[in-house]
């Protein structure tokens, strides 16, 4: 056995050129499934959202969901694709129990949308990712594998299948091969998926949540020597977070370089990404396309989207997220880095809504990226699911701006908002949190602090203004933090300069 020294990533990209390809599946957020009227809610009791069509019972006939067709065309348009004027669904035949009818209705050589592109920004540079096709198919059921370790298929003795998910409209978005990204390949892959997610989210056709599987990603990776033909690719499945997309590409590049350095050949195969180790392991060998025996779906008539309909959808597309971010960045006066932080936190819409509710962009951003992000992280939820509405944040900021509460009290008010106690103003009153602005009470507290700290007072009288902090602290303590520190400081200084 030879000892192999693992090459460093820098070493790998110095000697090999990676080629990427990404297949993203987006589960549409339609009310009903692709070919039947079953509901699509996540997390329902197993096999309660099923009917003869999605269970593939004899005699049942599928009918395509108009909303799903429309959503797919809109995704295609947002990705600068051509929309087919005529296309068919196809049967993809295979024998897993995740589809009850031994085939999946998909599209084969006639995708609804094709030949598009998506611009992705990486380190301030635009990378144009070509889109090969966007097609519509039905999602599969969920299997629970018994007898194997941790619910995985390996070593499993039997499987339990829930068909609630079977038949939910699933859009597959396939890129053209992406060469020339070099060392940035993992970052480009991640940035593409993030951008695609933002585009789909902006269309409102899916909640695109990777952790719930409504956006799933397969990553194709190959390596070749400079100037040589592209290498054999592997397809890594089970990549369930943006971070994993990046890690999966990187780990696959490292693994393939080891094989190639040793004079070996890369097998075209499916590999599984393991979240815990960040590595991939070999899965099933890829069946060739013809083995699926695709045939035009005889139970569904062809689709021929009316060009006028497509044009109406095109005109009504929302602004592309990347361009929208550029515009917002200018409006809010943010640097690239600051905007990036806002985007990464998923706070663009939240801040926008907060500004619309009357807050300044700076004030809104401070709340959402600061205190609220911190709380969201602590609770392990997304910012938007925290339970605070933009209009409440705007009100909170207004109370601070009006001097009614200080930042510290605002955080207490926020506790109340999260606990569902009402609007920030109501909570401020109910909890008695309003800043002490009664000058009489404050003046008494200042007098008491001066009397209790004669030595400090003397220093301040001698011009050592910095010593005032001690007295401010004493007053704040006496007012239980409910005074405005700056006002207190001003009062102390004027009291002692006059004295």
């Amino acid at each position, binding site marked *: 056995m030879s000892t192999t020294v693992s090459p460093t990533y820098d070493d790998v990209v110095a000697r090999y050129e990676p080629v990427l390809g990404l297949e993203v599946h987006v589960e549409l957020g339609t009310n*009903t499934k692709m070919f039947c009227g079953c509901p699509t809610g996540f997390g329902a009791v197993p096999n309660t959202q099923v009917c003869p069509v999605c269970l593939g019972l004899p005699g049942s006939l599928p009918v395509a969901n*108009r909303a799903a067709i429309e959503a797919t065309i809109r995704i295609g348009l947002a990705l600068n694709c051509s929309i087919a004027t005529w296309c068919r669904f196809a049967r993809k035949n295979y*024998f897993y129990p995740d589809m009850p009818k031994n085939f999946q209705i998909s599209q084969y050589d006639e995708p609804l949308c094709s030949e598009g592109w998506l611009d992705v920004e990486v380190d301030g540079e635009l990378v144009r990712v070509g889109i090969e096709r966007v097609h519509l198919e039905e999602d599969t059921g969920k299997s629970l594998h018994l007898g194997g370790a941790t619910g995985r*298929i390996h070593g499993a003795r039997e499987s339990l299948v829930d068909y609630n998910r079977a038949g939910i409209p699933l859009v597959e978005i396939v890129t053209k091969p992406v060469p020339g990204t070099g060392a940035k390949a993992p970052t480009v892959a991640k940035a593409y998926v993030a951008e695609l997610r933002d585009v789909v989210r902006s269309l409102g056709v899916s909640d695109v949540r990777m952790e719930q599987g409504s956006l799933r990603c397969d990553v194709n990776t190959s390596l070749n020597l400079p100037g040589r033909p592209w290498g054999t690719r592997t397809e890594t499945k089970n990549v369930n977070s943006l971070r994993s997309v990046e890690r999966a590409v990187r780990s696959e590049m490292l693994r393939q370089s080891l094989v190639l350095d040793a004079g070996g050949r890369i097998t075209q195969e499916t590999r599984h990404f393991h979240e815990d180790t960040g590595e991939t392991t070999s899965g099933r060998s890829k069946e060739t396309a013809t083995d699926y025996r695709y045939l035009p779906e005889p139970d569904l*008539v*062809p689709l021929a989207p009316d060009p006028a309909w497509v044009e109406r959808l095109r005109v009504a597309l929302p602004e592309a997220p990347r361009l929208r971010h550029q515009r917002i960045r200018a409006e809010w006066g943010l640097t690239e880095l600051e905007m990036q932080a806002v985007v990464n936190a998923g706070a663009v819409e939240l801040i926008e809504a907060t500004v619309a509710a009357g807050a300044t962009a700076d004030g809104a951003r401070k709340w959402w990226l600061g205190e609220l992000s911190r709380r969201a992280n602590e609770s392990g939820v997304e910012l938007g699911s925290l339970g605070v509405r933009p209009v409440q944040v705007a009100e909170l900021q207004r109370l601070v701006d009006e001097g009614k509460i200080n930042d510290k009290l605002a955080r207490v008010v926020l506790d109340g908002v999260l606990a569902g106690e009402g609007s920030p103003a109501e909570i401020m009153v109910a909890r008695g949190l309003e800043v002490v602005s009664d000058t009489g009470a404050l003046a008494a507290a200042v007098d008491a602090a001066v009397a209790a700290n004669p030595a400090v007072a003397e220093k301040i009288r001698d011009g050592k203004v910095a010593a005032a902090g001690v007295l401010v602290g004493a007053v704040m303590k006496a007012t239980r933090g409910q005074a405005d520190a700056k006002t207190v400081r001003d009062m102390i200084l004027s009291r002692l300069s006059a004295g």
Partner: protein
Amino acid sequence: MVAISRDEVAHLARLARLAVTEEELDTFAGQLDVILQSVARVGEVVAADIPPTSHSIPLTNVLRDDVVRPGLGQDAALSGAPDTDQGRFRVPRILEEEA
């Protein structure tokens, strides 16, 4: 010329998870060949102006609105299953050849 080889029949049988004996392979290859040759004769009369037909009815865009309709309950859904467990269809381990 044969329209389908014995090897192709064996391949199809494997894809369809059908256990086919050597004798059956010979039989089916011969029978399928007759069927395919017959169908192929249709191709002989096809003129260039006749597109391949996948659907016999000249309809497009048969779509339905995105409105929920009642389906089957869990009991009814599972009633035809050979075996169930935890509200799910219970099936033998699969992917044997792919693990």
